[in-house]
C-alpha cells in the first residue's frame, strides 16, 4: 500500500518547500465554499442530477450479461455443486446428515480427544487442555450439533481458501502483471463490507450451506494471497541457488524449495484464513450458513440473551483454540527423526492418539451420552448471565438516559448537521488539502479519486452520515483507548491482561452487543456509537501498547539520565517515537468502525448500512456493490492518508 521510500523523501521535500502554500490554499478554498454556500449554484452544494452516474444499473447490466449471456451461472453452479458434495460428506461425518458416506456422526468424545492430542503435539499440556476443553464445553453445553454444522462448512471452506490463496499468491509472485492486477483488487476486497459480497453470491450460488461456504472462501482468501506473496519474496537467493545446483526443475524449485522455505509466512496465512472463517460464522448465516450463527440470530430475535452469550463464548473459545493451534503449527520447526529410532518411538504420539480414540469410541458405544448428547441433557449458564445483564442494565440505566440526552442534543445532532451542511465541493477541497499536506499532489489526486465517485454515485448524504458516525466513534475510541493503551504499556502483566480483553472483545460475535446497547440507549445514534466504539477501541489500545513497548530502552534511559521526569519521558520521547505505530492503530480503528457501522444497521441507522441492508433483502447486486465500494473507498482514503502520515513521521525520525 505504500510506495518506495525514495519517492517519499521527494514528497517530504516538496511539501516542505512549496507544498504548504498549495494545501493551505485548498483549505481556504474549502472554507470559503462552505461559508459562502448561499452564493453558490446548487450544483456545487450537492452533485446535480445530471452528474449522478447510474453505476448500479451498469453493474446490474454487467451481471445480467455474465449470468445469462456468458453462461457464468453454469460455471458458478458447477463449482457450487462441488462445494456442496464436500459439504455433504463433512456434514455426514460431523453431524450425521443423511448423505453419502452415511457413517456419521463421529462421537463427540473422539473429536474432543483428537483435539486435545493435537494440542499436546503442537504445544504441550496447556494447549491440550485448551483444545480438548473447548470441545468438551461445546458438548456439555449441548451445542455439539450446531457447532458441527458450522464446522462442516469451515472444514471445507478453509482448505479451498488456502489452496486458492497459494495459487494466486504464487501467480502474483511469478508475474508482475498479475501482481498489479491482484493488489488493488485485494485492497478493495479487504475494505468491502461483508454484506456487499453476499448479494452476488446469492445470485450466482443460491442460498444454503454452499452459499455460506462460498462467501466464507471469498472473505478469507485475501490474507492468504498476501502472506504467500510475502513468504515467497523473502526466500533467500542462496537457498534457491542451492536448489538450482542440485538440478531442480522450475516446478521442483517452487514446490520443494521455495514454498517449504516460506513455510512460516504461509502458515500464518493459514492462521488468518481460519480466523476470517470464524469471523464469518454469524454473518454468513444471513444467506444460509447453518450452525452456531443461525442459532445465535434466532435467539437474539427472541431476545434470549443468556443462550446467545453461551454461543458467543463457544465462538470465542473456538477462535482462540484454532488460533493457538495454527500458530503453534506455524512456529514449529519441522522435526527430523534420528536415523536409528524405531517406528514405534517415531510415531509415539500417533499411537497414543489411536489408543485414546479407540477408548473414546468404545465408551461412546457403551454410554450414548459420549456419542451424541441430547439437548435436554445440556448444562446451561443462561440464567445467571441473564440475571447479570439485567442487573447491569438496571444499575447503569439512570446514567445512560442522561448520557443519551446530552450526547444527542449537544454533540451528535449538531455534529451531524454540520457535516451534512457542508457542500460536497468543500469536502472535496478539504480532502485534497489533507492529501497534499501529507503526500503532495499525488496523494491529493488519490484522495479525490476515492471520494469523487461517491459524490457521483448519488449516495452523498448517506455516505456523510457514515463518515459522521465513524468520526464520532473513532474520536470516542481514541479518548478511551489511548489512555488505556498508555496505562497498559506500563508493565508486561497489564499489557497481557489488556491484550486478552481486546482479543475476546474482537472475536465475540458483534450481534450480541447490540441488544444490551439498545436496552441502554434505545434505537438511537448513541446506541450505534456505543456498539461501533467497542470495536474501534480495540486496535487503538493494541497499537498504543505496541508502539510504546517498541521504543528502544536505551533511548528512554538516555532521556531519564538527562533528568527528564516520567511525564516528560512519555510526552517528549516515548509518545513521539511511538506515533507512527499509533497512527496504524487509528487506521485499523477506522477500518473496524466502517465494518461495524454497516452491521449497526441492525440497530437502526440512516447511513450506507441501512441501504445495504435493503439491497441485501432485495438481492440488488448493483446497489449493494455501489454502496460497498463507497464504504471501501472511504476506508482506503483514510488508509492512504494515515499511512502516508505515519511514513512521513518515520522519515522525519530517521533524519
Amino acid at each position: 500500500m505504500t510506495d518506495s521510500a525514495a519517492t517519499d523523501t521527494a514528497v517530504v521535500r516538496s511539501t516542505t518547500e512549496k507544498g504548504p502554500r498549495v494545501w493551505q490554499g485548498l483549505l481556504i478554498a474549502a472554507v470559503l465554499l462552505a461559508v459562502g454556500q448561499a452564493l453558490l449554484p446548487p450544483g456545487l452544494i450537492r452533485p446535480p442530477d445530471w452528474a449522478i452516474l447510474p453505476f448500479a444499473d451498469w453493474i446490474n447490466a454487467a451481471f445480467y450479461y455474465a449470468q445469462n449471456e456468458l453462461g457464468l451461472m453454469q460455471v458458478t453452479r458447477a463449482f457450487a455443486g462441488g462445494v456442496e458434495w464436500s459439504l455433504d460428506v463433512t456434514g455426514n461425518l460431523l453431524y450425521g446428515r443423511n448423505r453419502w458416506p452415511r457413517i456419521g456422526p463421529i462421537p463427540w468424545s473422539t473429536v474432543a480427544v483428537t483435539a486435545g492430542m493435537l494440542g499436546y503435539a503442537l504445544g504441550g499440556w496447556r494447549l491440550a487442555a485448551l483444545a480438548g476443553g473447548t470441545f468438551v464445553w461445546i458438548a456439555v453445553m449441548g451445542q455439539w450439533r450446531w457447532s458441527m454444522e458450522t464446522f462442516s462448512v469451515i472444514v471445507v471452506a478453509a482448505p479451498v481458501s488456502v489452496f486458492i490463496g497459494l495459487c494466486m499468491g504464487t501467480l502474483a509472485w511469478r508475474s508482475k502483471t498479475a501482481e498489479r492486477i491482484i493488489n488493488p483488487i485485494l485492497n478493495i476486497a479487504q475494505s468491502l463490507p461483508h454484506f456487499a459480497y453476499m448479494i452476488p453470491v446469492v445470485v450466482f450460488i443460491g442460498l444454503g450451506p454452499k452459499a455460506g461456504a462460498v462467501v466464507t472462501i471469498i472473505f478469507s482468501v485475501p490474507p492468504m494471497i498476501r502472506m504467500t506473496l510475502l513468504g515467497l519474496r523473502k526466500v533467500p537467493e542462496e537457498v534457491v541457488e542451492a536448489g538450482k545446483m542440485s538440478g531442480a526443475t522450475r516446478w521442483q524449485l517452487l514446490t520443494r524449495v521455495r514454498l517449504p522455505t516460506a513455510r512460516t509466512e504461509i502458515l500464518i496465512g493459514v492462521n488468518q484464513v481460519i480466523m476470517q472463517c470464524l469471523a464469518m460464522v454469524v454473518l454468513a448465516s444471513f444467506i444460509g450458513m447453518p450452525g452456531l450463527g443461525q442459532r445465535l440470530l434466532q435467539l437474539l430475535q427472541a431476545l434470549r440473551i443468556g443462550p446467545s452469550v453461551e454461543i458467543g463464548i463457544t465462538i470465542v473459545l473456538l477462535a482462540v483454540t484454532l488460533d493457538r493451534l495454527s500458530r503453534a503449527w506455524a512456529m514449529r520447526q519441522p522435526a527430523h527423526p534420528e536415523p536409528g529410532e524405531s517406528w514405534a518411538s517415531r510415531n509415539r504420539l500417533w499411537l497414543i492418539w489411536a489408543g485414546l480414540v479407540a477408548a473414546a469410541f468404545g465408551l461412546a458405544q457403551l454410554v450414548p451420552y459420549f456419542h451424541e448428547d441430547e439437548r435436554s441433557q445440556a448444562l446451561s449458564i443462561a440464567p445467571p448471565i441473564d440475571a447479570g445483564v439485567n442487573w447491569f442494565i438496571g444499575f447503569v440505566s439512570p446514567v445512560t438516559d442522561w448520557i443519551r440526552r446530552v450526547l444527542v442534543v449537544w454533540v451528535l445532532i449538531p455534529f451531524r448537521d454540520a457535516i451534512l451542511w457542508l457542500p460536497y465541493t468543500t469536502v472535496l477541497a478539504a480532502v485534497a488539502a489533507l492529501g497534499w499536506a501529507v503526500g503532495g499532489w499525488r496523494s491529493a489526486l488519490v484522495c479525490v479519486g476515492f471520494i469523487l465517485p461517491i459524490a457521483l454515485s448519488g449516495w452523498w448524504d448517506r455516505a456523510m452520515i457514515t463518515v459522521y458516525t465513524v468520526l464520532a466513534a473513532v474520536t470516542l475510541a481514541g479518548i478511551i483507548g489511548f489512555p488505556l493503551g498508555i496505562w497498559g504499556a506500563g508493565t508486561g502483566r497489564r499489557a497481557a491482561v489488556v491484550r486478552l480483553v481486546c482479543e475476546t472483545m474482537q472475536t465475540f460475535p458483534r450481534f450480541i452487543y447490540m441488544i444490551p446497547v439498545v436496552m441502554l440507549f434505545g434505537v438511537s445514534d448513541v446506541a450505534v456509537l456505543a456498539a461501533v466504539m467497542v470495536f474501534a477501541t480495540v486496535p487503538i489500545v493494541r497499537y498504543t501498547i505496541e508502539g510504546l513497548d517498541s521504543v528502544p530502552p536505551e533511548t528512554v534511559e538516555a532521556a531519564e539520565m538527562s533528568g527528564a521526569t516520567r511525564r516528560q519521558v512519555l510526552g517528549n520521547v516515548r509518545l513521539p517515537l511511538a506515533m507512527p505505530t499509533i497512527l496504524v492503530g487509528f487506521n485499523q480503528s477506522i477500518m473496524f468502525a466502517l465494518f461495524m457501522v454497516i452491521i449497526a444497521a441492525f440497530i437502526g441507522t440512516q447511513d450506507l448500512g441501512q441501504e445495504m441492508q435493503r439491497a441485501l433483502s432485495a438481492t440488488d447486486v448493483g446497489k449493494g456493490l455501489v454502496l460497498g465500494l463507497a464504504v471501501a473507498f472511504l476506508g482506503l482514503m483514510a488508509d492512504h492518508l494515515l499511512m502516508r502520515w505515519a511514513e512521513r513521521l518515520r522519515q522525519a525520525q530517521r533524519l
Partner: protein
Amino acid sequence: MQRHAKLLIGAAAVALTAAQGHAQDSSDPIIIPTHNWSSQIVMSHVVGNIFEDMGMSVEFISADSQAVYEAIRLGDVTLGLEVWEGAFGASFSAALEKGGILDVATHDAITREDWWYPMWTKEACPGLPDWEALNACAEIFATPETGDRGRFLGGPVDWLKNDQQRVDALGMNFTVVNAGSAAALWAELAAAERDSTPIVLFNWTPNFAEAVWPGEFVEFPAWEEGCDKDPALGPNPDATYDCGNPADGYLKIAAWDGMPEKWPTAFAVLERINFSNPQIAEMAKLVDIDGLDPEDAALAWLEANEDTWRPWVE
C-alpha cells in the same frame, strides 16, 4: 389465472399417476427454508416432521425471508410456509408474476401488522387505542432525537411499511424512527418495561411478543382497498396512506412449481395444511417463553395436536 394453472398442474399430476400406476415421490430432500422468527421455524419443523413420517427426505436451510421467493422460483428451496400479506406480499406477487412459484393454500390464520403499544402505555394515555387520542398525547412518547414530537419506533426500512406517509397524511405529531431489526424492537420494548415508559412501536400478530407483553394495536381509520393509491379514500382527501394496515391480512403457503411433479404425495399434503392464529401463537410460545429448541417444540406440538394434523396426512 393462478387457479387455472394449478388445476392444469393437478390434472397433469393425476394423469401422470394414472400413466405410471403409483407415482413415487423423489428421494431427493424437500428443502424447507427457516427464517429468523420462532413460529416460522417451529412450523417448518412440524411440516418437515410430517413429511419425514411419510418417508420423505427433508432438509432445512436458513434463508432471508424476502430473498427466499427468488430461491423458491428457482427450485433451490421447495416451499414456504408463512407468506405474510403485509411483509412479503410484494415479493411473493413479484415472484408469481415471474413464474416458477405456486400459490398453494391460505391458512385460516389472519395476520395484522400495525402500530402497537404494550398495556402499561394505556395508563399514561387513557384514550387509546384511538389514533387521535394517541396523537393528543404525542409528547409522552418524545425522545431526545425527536424533540417535542412523539417517537414511533418502526420496523426495518426494508419491511416497507409507509409509516412516514401515514404520519404526514394524518398530520400526526410523530417522528418515525426505524429500528434495524426485530431484535432491536424487542430490546427497546424490554427496556421500556423496566420503568413502564410509554412506547408505541411496530408489531404484528401472530407473534411471541403478545404472550410476553400484553398490548393492543392502535386503531387507525380502517383500511380500504386502494387507500394506498387513491387520495379520495380515507379522512384526508388529498393524501394516500391515511388509513391503518389491513386488519385481516392473509397467511399463505407457497411452493416451487416443480414440486407437484417431483413429490406428488407431499404436495397433496401441503395443500391440506392449515394453521390458525392460536396454533401459531402456541408454536412461538413453546420456543420464546418455554425455552424449547425449535426442533423439540415441533415434536411437542405434533404430540399435543395429533387431531389437527392426522387428517392432513390421511
